[in-house]
């Protein structure tokens, strides 16, 4: 009978899938033996009723399934085993391997031929099925890759997944994918993915891994073509992104130039006109007119100074060159100093202080600027003579200063945009004065001091909240 000791010989014949074959034999050999025993038993049962020679055909039922499921090798063994069993048990003289009639030889030859033909057919079908499955896996892998890549995923991230996918299709363990032409590390083999002469990527696998060359020749160029498209697209995209960034920076510069030209030219116009009038001997100027002209020159010169200061601060903030000198300061002192710098209009400001408010750890000059800009903004964007409220609210880790006005407030879209340079609220038609950088500077200084500045929704009007860090421990105790 076909024994288990035949198995190693069979396995040695196949080098491509040795592990799988050995696993098959563990099932195949007992199954084959069982099939022969089963058919022999059946023939024994039927022997008294049917002419013995025709019963020999039953051994096809042992040979056929083995040929189908376990391949030619085992099927040939089964057919030889079947022939020997039939001869030994049933053909006269029984219990010998001698044959009395030549017809029996013919029968045995037929069984053997059947076994070989059937198993060859079955093996071919099996190979075709495997091949079809392989191709389906390749096509599936390519389609999946295409849809993933064309959807625009990150190339470097995708490399890991692609390597797994390609490894699966090519039956390679521990494959990795790198873009461009890469030299293999020791113990690795490199499979170049190229379109024509252009290397797109390299698939790196274990040196010892068996590679199905046919599959590799078919699958790798397709994958390479796909990757080439995606690499090109990704390059174009990053070029487009760069162009967009440049365009934005140009737009910012244009906005800056426009703002600067307007903000510098308006005061210059007033100064030049006033100075020209004062210098013109033909004009008959009364004392009031003279005073008005001198006043215009003074105030506009001061405004010019503020605009230039704002622009300098903005450029320092954008360059990250602000170095706060942080000390402990009581909030009421900061508010008082800010109010002083606001000028006469500051009379409209109602201050609500909290006596228990902890001191804050900030650069006084910078936070004073922040408060002055917030208060100045509130005054400019609210109706004349309407109050502006500055409310100080203590907390445990931060102190909040609310600046609330009765102006038109901000739309949700404006609430964040307003902190960018040269943006003004759209409702600001009545009072678009100032350099358009005051809030950008306020936020810049706030953040440099470890604080936060934001707008809060408020039906009453504009509402800004400035949160400043308080000292970790109370001072003076």
């Amino acid at each position, binding site marked *: 009978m076909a024994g288990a000791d035949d198995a190693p010989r069979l396995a040695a014949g196949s080098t491509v899938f040795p592990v799988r074959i050995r696993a098959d034999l563990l099932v195949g050999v007992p199954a084959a033996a069982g099939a022969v025993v089963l058919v022999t038993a059946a023939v024994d049962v039927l022997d008294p009723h049917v002419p013995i020679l025709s019963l020999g055909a039953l051994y096809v039922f042992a040979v056929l399934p083995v040929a189908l499921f376990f391949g030619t090798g085992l099927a040939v063994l089964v057919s030889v085993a079947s022939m020997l069993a039939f001869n030994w048990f049933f053909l006269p003289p029984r219990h010998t391997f001698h044959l009395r009639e030549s017809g029996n030889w013919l029968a045995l030859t037929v069984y053997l031929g059947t076994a070989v033909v059937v198993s060859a057919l079955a093996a071919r079908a099996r190979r075709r099925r495997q091949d079809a499955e392989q191709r389906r896996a390749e096509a599936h892998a390519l389609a999946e890759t295409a849809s993933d890549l064309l959807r625009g995923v990150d190339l470097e991230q995708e490399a890991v997944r692609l390597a797994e996918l390609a490894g699966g299709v090519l039956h390679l363990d521990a494959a990795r994918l790198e873009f461009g032409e890469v030299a293999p590390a020791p113990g690795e083999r490199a499979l170049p993915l190229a379109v024509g002469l252009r290397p797109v990527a390299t698939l790196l696998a274990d040196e010892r891994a068996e590679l199905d060359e046919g599959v590799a020749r078919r699958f790798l160029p397709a994958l390479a073509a796909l990757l080439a498209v995606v690499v090109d697209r990704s390059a174009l995209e990053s070029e487009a992104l760069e162009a967009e960034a440049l365009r934005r920076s140009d737009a910012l510069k244009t906005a800056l130039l*426009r703002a600067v*030209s*307007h903000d510098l*030219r*308006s*005061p*210059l*116009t*007033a*100064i*030049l*006109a*006033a100075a*020209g*009038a004062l210098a*013109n001997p*033909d*004009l*008959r*100027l*009364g004392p*009031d*007119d*003279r005073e*008005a*002209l001198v*006043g*215009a020159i003074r*105030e*506009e010169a001061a*405004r010019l100074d503020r605009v230039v200061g704002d622009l300098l601060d903005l450029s320092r903030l954008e360059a990250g060159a602000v170095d706060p000198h942080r000390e402990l300061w009581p909030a009421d002192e900061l508010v008082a100093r800010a109010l002083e710098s606001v000028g006469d209009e500051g009379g409209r400001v109602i201050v609500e202080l909290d006596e228990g408010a902890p001191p804050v750890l900030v650069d006084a000059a910078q936070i004073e600027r922040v408060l002055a800009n917030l208060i100045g903004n509130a005054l400019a964007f609210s109706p004349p003579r309407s109050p502006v409220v500055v409310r100080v609210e203590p907390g445990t880790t931060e102190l909040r200063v609310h600046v609330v006005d009765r102006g038109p407030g901000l739309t949700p879209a404006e609430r964040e945009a307003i902190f960018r340079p040269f943006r003004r609220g759209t409702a600001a*038609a*009545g*009072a*678009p004065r100032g350099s358009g950088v005051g809030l950008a500077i306020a936020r810049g200084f706030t953040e440099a001091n470890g604080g936060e500045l934001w707008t809060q929704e408020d039906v009453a009007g504009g509402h800004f909240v400035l949160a400043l860090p308080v000292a970790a421990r109370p001072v003076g105790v």
Partner: protein
Amino acid sequence: MSGRILVVDDEPQILRALRASLRGAGYEVDTAETAEGALTALAVNPPDAVILDLVLPDGRGTDVCRELRTWSRVPVIVLSVVGDEDEKVAALDAGADDYVTKPFGIDELLARLRAALRRGEGAGESVVEVGELRVDLEKRAVSVAGRPVQLTPHEFGLLRVLARNRGKLLTHAMLLREVWGRGYDGESHYLHVYVSQLRRKLEPDPARPRYILTEPGAGYRLHDAERS
């Protein structure tokens, strides 16, 4: 010189400086800070001339100009800034008479204002003289230093429009429309060619024109003797 001037600008200090200067020059001064305020002031108390900023908080000076021109011929001088040439030309096309660019000297503004006011009075003269150039609009006769000059019909048409609006800045579109008719608004090259022909016939030194002056990016004007 006297008269009432409406100054429209949203910058309080510019208003303040102009009010004092214009008063010192003998004008009465009204002010407005918005487009709406300007139109109201123009309707309620019509001034003799308007000084109009092109950028107003509630609209464009150009629109004020266009609206104003539907019912008034009051001279308008617009205040523009460098970099806003298109808006300046649009305002001139909409009926503004002249412009000054911010920042401007008060003397320049006063000179333009005088010229604009004078044009309002002197309309309808049949003979225009600029230096040695003499244009008789009724007889269609042109002479330089007493020597007659022959002009083609289009050349004379162009000179006539300039002479009738002596001192006023005329945009390309206005000149093309007046001389060649509607539909030629965009054909600026016609204009450049005819202006250079005219200069060759009229100017003592065509490379340094004294009579027909170019306002870069805006248009042409016939020299106004008073402003020299």
